């Protein structure tokens, strides 16, 4: 396992709240969406929120027992815990309805990963969440204007000339700003993916998504993922908001 991964897992084990917040910020929305899908409309927005928090709490408890050598993908592991939490909730509801008061199984009672089917949509969401985390990290670490140049040029699709005009800079300056942010983004992507990946297969996702190509390919792939992630997140949030109403 990559050193960044082990470092992060160690931080989680040490109850580093910043690490937990980062985990929540990056993967919380994916978990909420997945739990909502599984719930099939039977579970309310607030419960979904509770369950996704419970998933991370369970992760906190099970991380002590996690064996990185088993070759389980990080995404699968996270999903397995979420599935367990949801199953637990449904068991509890069933028990409450029947009035038996039966206590649901605890995570230690069964292997959550063994019988799990992971679909491609979920894997794509997890990867997009990682890419988005890398963009966010780069935004925080870059000079504001430089990152805005990249945003306008790549995410908004404006021409270099137009961006230069809007910002009162020369096109050569725009190109240099663009390149510096691009380099930062590549490094951030490597780090983020390494941090949140357990298997070599996960590490190779960058090249699979076209993010290891030349500058043009890189920008194109990144913009596509950014827009896809943004659109999905908006749709999910709108859906959960309307369900909440």
């Amino acid at each position: 396992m990559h050193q960044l991964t082990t470092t992060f897992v160690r931080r989680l084990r040490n109850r580093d709240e910043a690490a937990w917040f980062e985990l929540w910020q990056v993967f919380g929305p994916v978990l909420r969406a997945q739990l909502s899908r599984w719930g099939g409309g039977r579970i309310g927005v607030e419960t979904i929120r509770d369950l996704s928090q419970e998933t991370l709490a369970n992760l906190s408890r099970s991380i002590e027992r996690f064996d990185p050598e088993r070759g389980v993908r990080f995404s699968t592991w996270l999903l397995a815990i979420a599935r367990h939490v949801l199953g637990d909730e449904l068991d509890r509801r069933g028990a409450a309805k029947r009035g038996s008061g039966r206590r649901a199984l605890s995570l230690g009672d069964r292997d959550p990963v063994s019988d799990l089917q992971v679909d491609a949509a979920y894997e794509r969401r997890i990867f997009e969440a990682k890419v988005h985390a890398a963009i966010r990290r780069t935004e925080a670490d870059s000079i504001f204007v430089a990152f805005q140049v990249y945003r306008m040029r790549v995410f908004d699709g404006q021409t270099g000339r137009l961006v230069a005009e809007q910002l009162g800079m020369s096109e050569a300056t725009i190109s240099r700003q663009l390149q510096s942010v691009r380099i930062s983004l590549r490094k951030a992507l490597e780090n983020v993916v390494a941090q949140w990946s357990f298997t070599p297969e996960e590490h190779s996702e960058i090249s699979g998504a076209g993010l290891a190509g030349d500058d043009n390919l890189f920008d194109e792939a990144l913009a596509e993922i950014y827009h896809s992630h943004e659109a999905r997140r908006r749709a999910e949030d709108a859906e959960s908001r309307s369900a909440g109403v």
Partner: protein
Amino acid sequence: MLTTFLGLIVTMIAVGIFVLGVIFILVPIIKGGFAFGSMLGRLIRHICRWLFGSISDVVRIIGQLFGMVVLIPLLLGSVVLGRWAAAQQAWSVIRGNGSGVCQALYRLLVRRPMSLLGIGVALDEVERSVHDAAILTNTVPGTQFDGYRIIDTLTSGGSGATLFVAEPHPTRRRRLAGQPSRVVIKCFDLDAGSKLPQMMRESRSLDAARRLGLVLEHDMDPSRFWYVMPWIPGAHLGEVVRELHEGGQGLDPTGLSRAINLTIDLLQILRRYHKQGLWHKDVKPENIIVNDSGAHLVDLGLVTPLASAMTLTTHGTEYFRDPELVRQALRGVKVSEVDGTRFDVYAAGAVLYYILENTFPAHGGLSRFDQPSPEAAKWIVHRAMSDYEQRYADVGVMLADVAVLAKASDPWSVRPADLPSMKGVETTETTENVPPPPPAPVRHHHLPRVAPPPPRIPETRRSASGQFSWIAAAASFVLGVGILMMIGQVVLTSNDGSILNNGGPYVAAGKAWSPNPGSYGENLAFAEPIEVPTPASSQPGLCLLIVDHASRDKEPIAETINVFRDQLSRAGWSHRIDVEAEIAIRSVMPPRPEPGRVPVHPAVREALENRDLDAAVLLIESAGENGGVDVIMLTHEWQARWEIPQQIQQSLGSDTDQE
């Protein structure tokens, strides 16, 4: 065959002519487009309104009656089976439907016919009186406020308080600033489930809120605490934004101009807050009321003094709260160690995004713009929501940028380069592959060991008249006595524990009843001056108690702190909320003195004397590895630190459990 075919063609032509007639003749008449048709159009609209309204009422009655017919067997079945919860729920729905049927019948048979005849106005006063009477009848016993008549309730947020719309009686009205005809009363009622920490948190900013004209007065009785705010009629920003975006193509020029003006209003209000040493902390569309006079920021629930020595909390609203605030709160930093105004700047940026896009910024500063907006407006949003260190340094800078948009004859022609904040902006290109990380967002203020400068107090407070200060002090005293009585009655009862003097420092031991160990709120620190027997003399005195443990709401720490507080306040002395005292004491308090007792620094003695305190106690996380609670006590003569170890906490916990 031919005849049928021709008949069909003629019919279709006739229908077409009819439709065109409706479109080209009736519609202009209804809209009053023809001079001669204006009167006729109004009459037709009037009749149509009556007709469609009546049809809608009939449909509603049928639907609700059908619902009742379906639910009545369900109710009877539930009663027979003994499923009381289900029966109660069914009954509640049936009642609601019954009420709906009655209302629809009233509209159908009385209200609409009278309105059709043009005498509906006569019913307005009758309906208003009935509505007021219904509100008064429905309010729970005790929801009366001396000098006010309740006329309505409002949806309350997450603070646990109830909001009432009220009219002040003429004598009371004359006493209030601005002599408002209507006010909003925010009431915390312990009997209705409000929590003491919430009450204490909101009461901290009352003085500053009064100076800003946001609070007119406050009062309390043994179980309730309430304050009175001006009533601001209007719609909240969310509703206004929905209307502005009705076309679905983004904002039109008028809408854009209105959006910019509303943003300017918001930023001006925030600037007033910040100048008064406060930050709002919960700026969001639902807290912005818009009316003819512009935008108004409401809800003081989270308003916090910028110089507060409290621990930063994560309270706020997702999407409008800066994630950096959460990060810092999780680190346990104090409010005074961060620049709270920047979090308001972030929220203002999020609100501007919301206005432009008609949705919330799901990805913070990275959120995409889908609606057409001027590039300069997008730039302002991105700048306000960028990284903590890189965003606008204060709302004044953001305001200057937005003002350029407001002044422009065509906002679309304004470039980001034209904004004042872009003059001299850092555009240094990075020469390294990875830019150096920005400085840590927290501004570290090391507490001085020698006499420090006085705590930051807003200038307006210094210039306030002596009479006002005297009245404020008296009001605070009355408030404090009341809160003490409440704590005495509600929280600190059933305690049969004792304080054991264990070789100087206290050790809390014995049983104590804890009403709600986890109810102190997220990362909430609070200061409560109470009288305690000091270890030196065993004589009671006034002590400022500051609970600032990172895990104060978790077992067994919460239990330990509760027990300790119980021990100290067992005699039930006067108690008042005094954040400034805490700020003053913290500013001279050594970060973490060595264990044991040493002479106190003169600055500490002076701070205690200035606040008429005999001692101050700080409960924080233990420096050791045994997860205990460190107690730091400062008196006029000495300062001491000791620890309540884990073992004692466990014994306290087990004692409490047994009880």
